[in-house]
């Protein structure tokens, strides 16, 4: 390497080489398949027929932009927090150079990726995607994120909140533009966005300069407020009742950040209940959509909960917990209890947020109308049952993904994420292929029971392996393993009975319901969590 710029770019590339290689490979695959697969496979959007292949791959390729943005933001493992990579501060180069290379090369890369996507995927399949305006928007989004991420703040929560607000502001600007019916030509919008990049550069240079000098933006009033609170804080003297109570306190305090983070994000989505306020049907759709948000949040929260690294200071504190005289099963039991508490907290926040829908004109009346037509017991019982199932599902989603991070292996996390994304893409691909070949519909339907049977066999095999692992590692005895299986069977049996009792018989035949619920209810992932923790604990 002959210049600092080359060295900086090499570092960005080398740290994110696998992600960048995956993004490049996917882009190439998308371009190739867009040209190879038939164009007459179309889907209807806004009363127009658009190429299904072009739409699917074009939208998917947007993730390549986000991978590149994450790489060029340079905030990862050794940077720990949102900050510029600290070891580079001592390099004998000006701050402007430190900032310019990752910022401008990053902006250029995301713009080029969009142009490839637009020209060779969207436009190649007949979708008239704009070229320059999105390219400039991606470049500005990256530059803004870099400027914010590299600026040091004494209060980490303030840093995250500010970054979230600024990065979601384009949605607000777009909405205001739509409401005020502002019209901007594409060249004008592109120039406007490109003109903002130098401002982001100046902000980033200022931020990195401050970080180099060790000066963080400090909200002193907040600091004084926290100090005054600390003075009032009574000294903790009374001991915990048991090891379990102490560990539960530890887990709750360590992962308090998850519901706090969700609460911080909510003001950014405050406009959602205000969309098309007069449309009562949309109110019901929004209600249905929002009720499912906690289920998605739960997966991410579960990952955080399983992580033994301190989620607040991000320091590696695994051995702090693992050298305590507490069994892996007890740690896991406490994590399951913490997941239940976090589920409760997340649902309380979301119910508060969802209640904003009641401010939509005509929506409360619509709810009252539906309730009165259903009868008192159904009107009370069904929402309670639905909410209980959703809460249970949220907890299930949270604990089902615990095992991944409990292994403490980055490669397991990455393999799990990429594997999941890969399966989704393969599933969509097969779905598209079958969907556009009518002659395949009948054989595909005939194959469904076999597929479910195969999945059930795989699930049983995995469960067998996990139970054997648990017994062999002496985490539980044969009686404990039998109890776990019995509890799973009881849970599946109860859910099946409930589904068969509540759902109309034409939609819920036992041959569909029982395998569906059996596949859906986690066993190996939950029972395997202690094994994952043991694998992490005794490497």
């Amino acid at each position, binding site marked *: 390497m002959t210049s600092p710029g080359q060295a900086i770019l090499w570092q960005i590339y080398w740290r994110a080489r696998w992600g960048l290689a995956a993004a490049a490979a996917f882009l190439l695959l998308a371009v190739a398949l867009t040209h190879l697969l038939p164009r007459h496979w179309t889907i209807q959007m806004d009363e127009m027929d658009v190429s299904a292949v072009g739409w699917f791959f074009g939208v998917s390729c947007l993730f390549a932009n986000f991978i590149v943005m994450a790489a060029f933001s340079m905030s990862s493992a050794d940077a720990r927090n949102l900050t510029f990579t600290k070891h580079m501060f001592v390099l004998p180069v000006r701050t402007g150079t430190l900032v310019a290379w990752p910022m401008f090369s990053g902006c250029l890369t995301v713009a080029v990726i969009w142009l490839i996507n637009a020209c060779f995927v969207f436009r190649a399949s007949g979708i008239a995607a704009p070229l320059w305006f999105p390219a400039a928007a991606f470049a500005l989004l990256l530059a803004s994120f870099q400027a914010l991420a590299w600026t040091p703040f004494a209060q980490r929560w303030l840093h995250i909140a500010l970054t979230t607000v600024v990065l979601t502001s384009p949605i607000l600007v777009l909405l205001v533009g739509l409401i005020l019916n502002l019209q901007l030509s594409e060249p004008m919008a592109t120039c406007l966005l490109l003109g903002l990049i130098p401002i982001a550069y100046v902000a980033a240079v200022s931020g990195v300069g401050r970080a180099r000098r060790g000066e963080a933006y400090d909200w002193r009033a907040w600091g004084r407020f926290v100090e005054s609170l*600390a003075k009032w*804080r009574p*000294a*903790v*003297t009374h*001991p*915990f009742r*048991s*090891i379990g*109570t*102490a*560990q539960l*306190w*530890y887990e709750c*305090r*360590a992962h308090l950040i998850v519901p706090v983070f969700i609460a911080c994000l909510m003001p950014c989505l405050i406009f959602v209940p205000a969309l098309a306020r007069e449309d009562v049907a949309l109110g019901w759709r929004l209600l249905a959509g929002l009720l499912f948000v906690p289920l998605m949040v739960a997966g991410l929260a579960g990952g955080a909960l399983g992580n033994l690294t*301190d989620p*607040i*200071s991000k*320091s*590696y*504190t*695994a*051995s*702090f917990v*693992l*050298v*305590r*005289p*507490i*069994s892996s099963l007890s740690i896991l039991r406490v994590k399951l209890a913490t997941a239940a508490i976090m589920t409760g907290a997340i649902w309380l926040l979301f119910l508060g947020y969802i209640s904003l829908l009641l401010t939509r004109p005509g929506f409360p009346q619509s709810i009252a109308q539906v309730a009165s037509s259903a009868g008192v017991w159904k009107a009370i019982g069904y929402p309670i049952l639905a909410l209980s199932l959703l809460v249970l599902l949220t907890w299930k989603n949270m604990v089902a993904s615990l095992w991944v991070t409990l292994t403490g292996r980055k490669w397991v996390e990455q393999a799990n994420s990429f594997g999941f994304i890969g399966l989704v893409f393969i599933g969509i691909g097969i779905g598209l292929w079958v969907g556009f070949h009518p002659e395949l519909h009948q054989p595909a339907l005939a194959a469904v029971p076999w597929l479910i049977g195969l999945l059930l066999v795989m699930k049983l095999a995995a469960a067998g392996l996990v139970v054997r692992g648990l017994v062999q590692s*002496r985490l539980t005895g044969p009686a404990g393993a039998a109890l776990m299986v019995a509890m799973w069977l009881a849970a599946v049996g109860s859910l099946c009975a409930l589904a068969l009792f509540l759902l109309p018989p034409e939609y819920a035949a036992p041959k569909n319901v029982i395998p569906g619920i059996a596949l859906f209810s986690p066993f190996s992932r939950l029972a395997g969590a202690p094994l994952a923790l043991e694998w992490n*604990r*005794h*490497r």
Partner: protein
Amino acid sequence: MRSPEFLFSDDVIEICGVTRKFGAKRALDNVSLAIPRGVVFGLVGANGAGKTTLIRHLLGLLQAQTGSVRVFGLDPVQEPVRVLARVGYLSEEGDLPGWMRVDELMRYMRAFYPTWDEVYAQDLRRQFELDPAAKVKTLSKGQRARAGLLVALAYRPELLLLDEPSSGLDPIVRRDILGAIVRTIADEGRTVLFSSHLLDEVERISDRVAMLKGGRILFTGELDEIKQTHHRLTLRFLDERRQPPELNGVLSWEGRGYIWTAVAHGRLDDLALAASAAGAEIIDQRALSLDEIFLAQVGTPRLQPEEV
């Protein structure tokens, strides 16, 4: 289960033929070690010698790929709870959760150890000048090390494992407090195993020492015995030499012409006989410090000897 041999053994730690590889790198290579109750055991070695890996095996955080590890006669991987309840550990990284306050840390730790001595813990807190309301993340590296040491000591563990305790402590705490505490623990019949780069400190407070190099134990034994078997010898040769001769037990050479200085390992009588056979006489001899022994054992030899 307590192993049957341990019922008759007074060794707190028994490591037998442990090998550990990380990829192609052999971090521990057939290490065997026994540490009896009531001693202060110093583990010395260069960076990457395997000291931390060895300590992590004792905690059950690493599993022996070959061989066995017993702490109090128990396998720390099979019975972590029973072993860890009796072990105090201070890690090199000071991996305490940053969000905890010092008093919260003490309260949390107290729950795990029935032997926690609150009066002693508060004494240590005052001695280490730690503010109970301070968050761990706001503490300096040295203060964090003190907090880690406090919570490792306050339940009076039977075995104290200190991984590079000196790296975060200032000289006053290191010399006056840590040394005194470690000696007190040993006097009470408890055992201390600590790794350190600071050999003067190891020499000052250890009863026994093991020196690791490249994952292998170079030597282990009583500190006095080790010092008695290492010598700095000044030799006068009958003829002028460009290269020193090959002598059994010599670890390193310095000098030129007729007068050469050797750092040697072995009985003095044997070394004198060997020198005489090589045409030299010992004109001066003195004992070595642990620092000098370490350098001679671990450092690269400055001169290549010639065959006699």
